[in-house]
């Protein structure tokens, strides 16, 4: 568990304290993928860098398990940092070293001298990220996606319990992003390590996170499971992020000249895959007009979200039946 207790952070700029993060509390559970989403300058990097104390908090405590990171002397802090891997938006690989030497770097830093052991571990890691045949290349000879895979292999070298990802896919195209996210999800599943990732894209959160916190101007304005936050965003900033991820839907739902009651139905899990809607509408003699909709997944959870305009005498009874079938319903206002 990573636990922030009354943590806040301000930067000293020209003798003045500029707040970057307002006091907050946050728990990140073992083995989960925790997302932090926010616009540029919201304080995401500051927050994630507090975890391995690349940034010292101005106040409050940061606990990893039972260890108070903020109280550690320098050598103990360095030992702790070896148990926390980190990957970066711009990869930050050593340009003067080969792929294999980049991956071996944290092992050597940790004092491993046995060349055979280093080799074996590097081979294993490169196989894990699918770069075995690139071991002898230099970073400048790799694509962005390959560089990030080297970054991931390097971050995993010392078998960390936590992996921090600072905008790990922001410099990559959509397809490469998807494959890097799949790799991160597989690592989380198979190695059971905790992943904390920050991003400005809701789609990244939707694909691999279990829980998410929304950061707005140094404040956590919303947090919860990704399904809850994504399907029922409360804060304006969150809504904007969700709309960015679903642009066409945001546009149609605002279409004028709609008659009847406009509702948004949310199906989660098994309900998504069953013909509940047509059955209930037929039984209650209600007509519906489909305004917008999508069926997709949040991590492994299938969900559907439909915006409907209902017309008919029996709409209330129909809605009650839908609710009984586990479908979430929101009135969208006339």
């Amino acid at each position, binding site marked *: 568990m990573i636990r922030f207790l009354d943590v806040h952070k301000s930067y000293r700029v020209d003798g003045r304290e500029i707040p970057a993060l307002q006091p907050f509390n946050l728990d990140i559970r073992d083995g989960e993928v925790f997302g932090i989403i926010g616009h540029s300058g919201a304080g995401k990097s500051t927050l994630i860098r507090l975890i391995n104390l*690349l940034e010292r908090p101005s106040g409050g405590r940061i606990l990893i398990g039972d260890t108070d990171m903020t109280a550690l002397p320098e050598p103990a802090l360095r030992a*702790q940092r070896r148990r926390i891997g980190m990957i970066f938006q711009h990869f930050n690989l050593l340009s003067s070293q080969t792929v294999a030497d980049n991956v071996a770097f944290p092992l050597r830093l940790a004092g491993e001298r046995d060349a055979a052991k280093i080799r074996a571990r590097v081979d294993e890691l490169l196989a894990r990220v699918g770069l075995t045949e690139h071991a002898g290349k230099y970073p*400048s000879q790799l694509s962005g996606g390959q560089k990030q895979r080297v970054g991931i292999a390097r971050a995993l070298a010392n078998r960390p319990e936590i992996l921090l990802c600072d905008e790990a896919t922001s410099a990559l195209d959509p397809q490469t992003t998807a494959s890097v996210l799949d790799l991160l999800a597989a690592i989380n599943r198979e190695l059971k390590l905790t992943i904390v990732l920050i991003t400005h894209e809701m789609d990244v959160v939707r694909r691999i996170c279990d829980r998410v916190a929304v950061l707005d101007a140094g404040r956590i304005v919303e947090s919860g499971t990704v399904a809850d936050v994504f399907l029922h965003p409360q804060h304006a900033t969150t809504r904007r992020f969700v709309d960015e991820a679903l642009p066409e839907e945001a546009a149609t739902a605002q279409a004028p000249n709609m008659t009847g009651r406009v509702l948004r139905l949310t199906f989660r899990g098994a309900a998504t895959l069953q013909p509940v809607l047509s059955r209930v509408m037929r039984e209650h003699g209600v007509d519906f007009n489909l305004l917008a909709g999508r069926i997709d997944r949040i991590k492994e959870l299938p969900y559907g979200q439909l915006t409907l305009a209902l017309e008919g005498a029996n709409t209330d009874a129909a809605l009650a039946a839908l609710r009984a079938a586990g479908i979430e319903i929101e009135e969208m206002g006339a």
Partner: protein
Amino acid sequence: MTASPLQSLFPNIDDWGELGHACIDTLLMLGGSLALTVLIGLPLGVLLYLTGKGQLRAMPKFYGIVSLLVNVLRSVPFIILMIVLMPVTYALVGTKLGVRGAIPPLVIGAAPFFARLVETALREVQQGVIEAAQAMGASTWQVVRHVLLPEARGGLAAGITVTAIALVGYTAMGGAIGSGGLGDLAYRYGYLSYKSDYMLVTVVLLVVLVQLLQMMGDRIVARYKRH
């Protein structure tokens, strides 16, 4: 005695052995002072880098003092530095003359210059790479040894080249006040005795030396730049 082509071309140069000796003296002064300059300037440059504003071991006051000292040494013209340092030179190597006498002022003149070049080269290293190493638990020494120096090696090689070439110029100047070498020949025969062929030959040799250094340096830098 039939005149060899060399003799007819350079009628005033009657002792080619002396010229060869001067060449070797210049190379010795260059080699010795360059090695010591790197040995002293590299740690000094690392120190300047580390203690600079916003760096790993920022110490503004300390940095200010070292920086001032470096600037003072850099702004004194070499020929004056050499004269001012004569007592120090004598105390260090027991003579003010010859190759040995030239090396202390050469090193004291060039090391601060090289240290600045080192500092600049290290500043070119991406902050993110340093941060990545810190995130892996690297100590400051490990960052210097395994990140800063290897990542900056292209810039460092370029700095050594520039310093070597500056040292060639310094050794030639030193010749005027008794340190021997090609500068000494050019000054004594070429300038004081109006034997312009001496001047020409020494200048050509110095130009060749500088060219060779530059080419070697460029080669090394290019090899490092490829990655």
